[in-house]
């Protein structure tokens, strides 16, 4: 199912997020937050342009799905652009997040805070994403990046994993909007964790059994938002495969999950795509009156907001 088609047919809108002046060519993985009626977005800006030959007709030298960096470029740097939106979803202000005071020399080739989700916890605005540039091994951790009113980064907190904090890769934790420092770390088996800023530790507060009838591959996408006496989120599933010429390719699909307040998975939707693309990624969702605003990228090359009536989503939840 094409979610944008369903949304637009019933009064919704597909809105492109574009910026003429930006450091790098591609805008992707946008997140969105409704801050007491003011809409703000965080858009990832990267210096690669994905080349995707959907049906292998015009494959690149290196396969159907290739991240085209600058020649001889050894790093993947992410910058984040904060945007303010009008009621009609027009970008009225855009500021590159100034991280200069907290940046340290990168130790690995993935530089910057990736796939940042926006939250407002304890009256502080945060970008929450994954950072891999602090260790020579590229070990990744979720980081809280606190922003001031000018979207300048004023504090940075690297969140340890639960237990011995000895895992290699932590990413795509989904922040729960109304529960500060709480994340859905994994969706099946469900694991909800909470970070304690005072002790600088993270503990598991909910852990469910693996549900074999559900997908093993539900991975974090949007924030988790309070919705109808429970929590709603968007997760993604990835099918990584090889083309006939043994080159890497992938398909991303998304679905809604709905938990009750006790974190029981009550409903879920079927899988959908946003714009009939094979590579899409959702990084944000917020309520906006009778609608939900869902932000996602298309082929990592373009960023969008989908305005969809809540009733449509409720109908999709089975």
């Amino acid at each position, binding site marked *: 199912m094409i979610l*944008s088609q369903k949304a637009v047919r019933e009064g919704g809108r597909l809105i492109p997020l574009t910026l003429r002046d930006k450091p790098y060519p591609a805008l992707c993985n946008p997140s969105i937050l409704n801050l007491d009626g003011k809409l703000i977005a965080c858009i990832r800006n990267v210096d690669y342009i994905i080349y995707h030959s959907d049906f292998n007709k*015009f494959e690149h030298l290196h396969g159907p799905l290739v991240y085209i960096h600058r020649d001889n470029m050894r790093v993947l740097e992410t910058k984040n652009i904060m945007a303010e939106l009008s009621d009609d979803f027009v970008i009225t202000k855009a500021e590159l997040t100034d991280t200069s005071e907290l940046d340290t020399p990168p130790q690995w080739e993935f530089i910057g805070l990736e796939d940042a989700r926006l939250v407002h916890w304890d009256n502080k605005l945060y970008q929450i994403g994954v950072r891999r540039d602090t260790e020579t091994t590229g070990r990744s951790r979720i980081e809280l990046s606190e922003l001031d009113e000018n979207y300048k980064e004023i504090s940075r907190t690297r969140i340890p994993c639960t237990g011995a904090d000895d895992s290699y890769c932590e990413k795509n934790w989904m922040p729960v909007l109304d529960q500060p420092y709480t994340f859905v770390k994994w969706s099946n088996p469900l694991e909800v964790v909470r970070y304690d800023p005072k002790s600088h530790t993270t503990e598991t507060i909910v852990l469910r059994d693996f549900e074999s009838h559900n997908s093993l591959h539900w991975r974090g996408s949007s924030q988790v938002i309070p919705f109808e006496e429970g929590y709603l989120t968007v997760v993604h599933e990835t099918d990584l495969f090889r083309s006939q010429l043994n080159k890497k390719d992938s398909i991303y699909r998304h679905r809604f999950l709905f938990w009750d307040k006790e974190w029981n998975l009550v409903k879920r939707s079927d899988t959908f795509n946003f714009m009939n693309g094979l590579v899409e990624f959702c990084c944000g969702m917020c309520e906006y009156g009778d609608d939900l605003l869902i932000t996602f990228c298309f082929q990592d090359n373009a960023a969008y907001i989908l305005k969809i009536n809540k009733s449509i989503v409720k109908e999709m939840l089975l």
Partner: protein
Amino acid sequence: MRELFDAYTFNPEASNVNVDLADWYFDKGDVAAAVTFYLRVCEREETDKELIYTCLLRVYECYKSTYDRAETCAVVLDHAISLLPDRPEAYYLQSRHYESLKDWVTMYMFTTLGLRAESPAKSLRHDFGYIPGVSMKFQRMIASYGTYRLDEGRQILQDVKDNDFERLPAEYKDLVENNIKNFMACGEAMIMDYSWPDYSMYQFKFPGLEHVERNFSALYQDLFVLSCLEGKKNGTFLEIGASHPHINSNTALLEYNFGWQGWSVEINELHKPSYEQVRPKSTFIGGDARDINYDFLPETVDFLQLDADPAEVTYEVLEKLPMSTTKFAVICYEHDHYRDMYYNCRQRSRKYLQDLGYFLLVPDISIEGINSIEDWYVHPDLVPRHVIEKMVYRPKKYTIVMEYMLGQLKFK
């Protein structure tokens, strides 16, 4: 804008919808997004090859605009060439691509292929800067220089200048001008010299030639003057743009071997001591030839040389000379037509001199038949008729000076 995206949501597989969206992003400078939708067209369109071709070229432009993604640029253009090998645009862009990489050999190859591609019968949705009949020729010219095919490069450059200049976009005109200044001069710097073994080949022998061991001019001008005046001794000259007293000098032979004297006008006054030392019969006049009062000239002077770069300055000097009171028997006029883009001094000087009664004896003096440098005139009152009849020459295009003077090309 909203209509575009609504159309997409309901027809995401339609080529026309995807290309509209791609163009919208492209026009906004959002090239990454544009790549996605152009590629969607390429992957989905079944019949309209020109549309796919256009989208591939646009994908190239998108990647090209973001710098340092050369491999992908080449891949995309290769796809376009494979799709429609008879169209020239992708070859043209490939040649530009490899030009930017300074890979002249590959660039030359793509111009070879591109020049064989047919002129496009069907216009494309977008303009890629390709001008039929001009763009590929221009690329070929650059590739020729890059691969050290200098003669070919100069020939194309002259052809572009003569036949296509007015059709060129402004930036191309600048390039043509710069290239003419930079590359055509390579030919001018070549010296067409005479030495005594050439005596038997010399076409217009005159008394005293048998004693000439060598000449000094770059294009046989000194010998031409002596042929016109049948080896005249003790003649007079006015030399505008004299430069060095004997290197490439048009008057050194006249003075040294035939006892001529005259005035050597030269803007570079550093040459003055040399003239005083080795050219005692010449009066060196330093300064801008346009600022000199020429009232000192007698009623007749045997030889006038005009060569004050650039072409428009030479013409200004011509207008400054007292042509109504002084008659010149022989004139070598350097109009530098090959690099005179705007002033058309060749045409203007011809009208000016012919209106004064001068006869264009040998037009368009050229080294290799590629670039026209000078015209040679005589005044019928001062040069014998039988000499004029013997020496007059009308080339098909340009006068290859060595062939004219020696009857053949020397092999060195």
